[in-house]
């Protein structure tokens, strides 16, 4: 938060206390609970880690300009330096209430919104309102899903070689690859998705878009068609739910208790995920 007043405003709004953070980073915290039951900490006066040495982005030769002469393109075959946490994608059966909650408290702006065929918003790429300072295309993604959950988080690396060599290292270590390398359309990141031993997805990305506060929201259909410009074929398993007994029970519960989560919505979503990615092929 920009000031302690922000913490005070959030604490008053949600009727919670301001606590001192005992752990690393210190500072003060207001601990909120979103409509899905996820804990959201708002922080102020954190002590940031000291800068650590990181490699610079590689120089690229173009037809017009040769900046690398008598020198090969060699990035180290090591895990990439992670420059920053870029975004997290959250799944929710109550998209409308969740959007309202995050936008009201954190001032998020939707950069791009994906809608069902009847025009209902179903997924939003939200960025922070930094005024004239550019913010990532999205930092918090909220997407409609039968059950609440974590979808993935994404970490920025220096350049395309860091994404590529990062893939080599994770492959060599025997980790589970999910999808990539490719370039997204909305946000434009060059991406590569991996999952850890528990099936949690983590993304390396480079060269993403940034926007200032005055950029207007874009609206697009929700479908696999709009996911990427080029790269490895989209694996259907990427967004396919793991249908367990508890998944079915929670879905039925959500259909009965959340007014905006309807059978009609589920049907429209299933229809749209079946569309062909990259229709020009």
């Amino acid at each position, binding site marked *: 938060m920009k000031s302690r007043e922000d913490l005070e405003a959030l604490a008053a709004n949600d009727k919670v206390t301001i606590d001192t953070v005992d752990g690393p980073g210190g500072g003060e*915290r207001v601990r909120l609970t979103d409509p899905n039951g996820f804990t959201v*900490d708002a922080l102020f006066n*954190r002590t940031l880690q000291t800068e*650590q040495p990181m490699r610079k982005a590689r120089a690229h030769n173009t037809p017009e300009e040769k900046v690398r002469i008598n020198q090969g393109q060699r990035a180290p075959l090591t895990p990439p330096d992670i420059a920053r946490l870029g975004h*997290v994608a959250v799944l929710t059966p109550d998209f409308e209430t969740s959007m309202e909650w995050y*936008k009201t408290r954190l001032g998020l702006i939707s950069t791009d919104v994906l809608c069902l065929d009847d025009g209902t918003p179903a997924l939003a790429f939200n960025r922070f309102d930094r005024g004239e300072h550019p913010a990532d295309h999205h930092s918090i993604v909220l997407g409609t899903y039968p059950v609440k959950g974590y979808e993935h988080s994404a970490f920025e690396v220096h350049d395309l070689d860091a994404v590529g060599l*990062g893939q080599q290292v994770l492959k060599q270590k025997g980790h589970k690859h999910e999808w990539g390398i490719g370039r997204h359309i909305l946000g434009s990141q060059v991406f590569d998705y991996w999952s850890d031993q528990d099936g949690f997805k983590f993304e390396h990305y480079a060269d993403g878009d940034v926007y200032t506060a005055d950029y207007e929201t874009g609206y697009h259909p929700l479908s696999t068609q*709009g996911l990427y*410009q080029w790269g490895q074929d989209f694996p259907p398993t990427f967004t396919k739910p793991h249908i367990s007994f508890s998944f079915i029970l929670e879905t039925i519960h959500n259909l009965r208790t959340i007014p905006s989560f309807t059978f009609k919505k589920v049907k429209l979503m299933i229809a749209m995920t079946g569309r062909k990615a990259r229709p020009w092929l």
Partner: protein
Amino acid sequence: MDFSLEETLPVDPRKVDRIASPVTKAWDIAYLRFAKPDLNEQAAFFKDFGFIIAEQTDERLMCAVPGQAPISSSSKKRLKQPIWGWVSR
């Protein structure tokens, strides 16, 4: 070729309006926190992914990202859900 990367909607979308006066305007995302059963396995994945392990005990694993606050910890305790944190500059 008349394909476009950008698709168009068949109907007018229901707009997602901005909130006129939000309670705050957050500046950045600070960290994520997960409940994980095996911190050694988690540390191995995180190292291969590129994180620096800042602290590992029986109870928690902290990863650091240069230039940011410590960002990603896992607790051995079974937290119900992941936690996200937001900070300003």
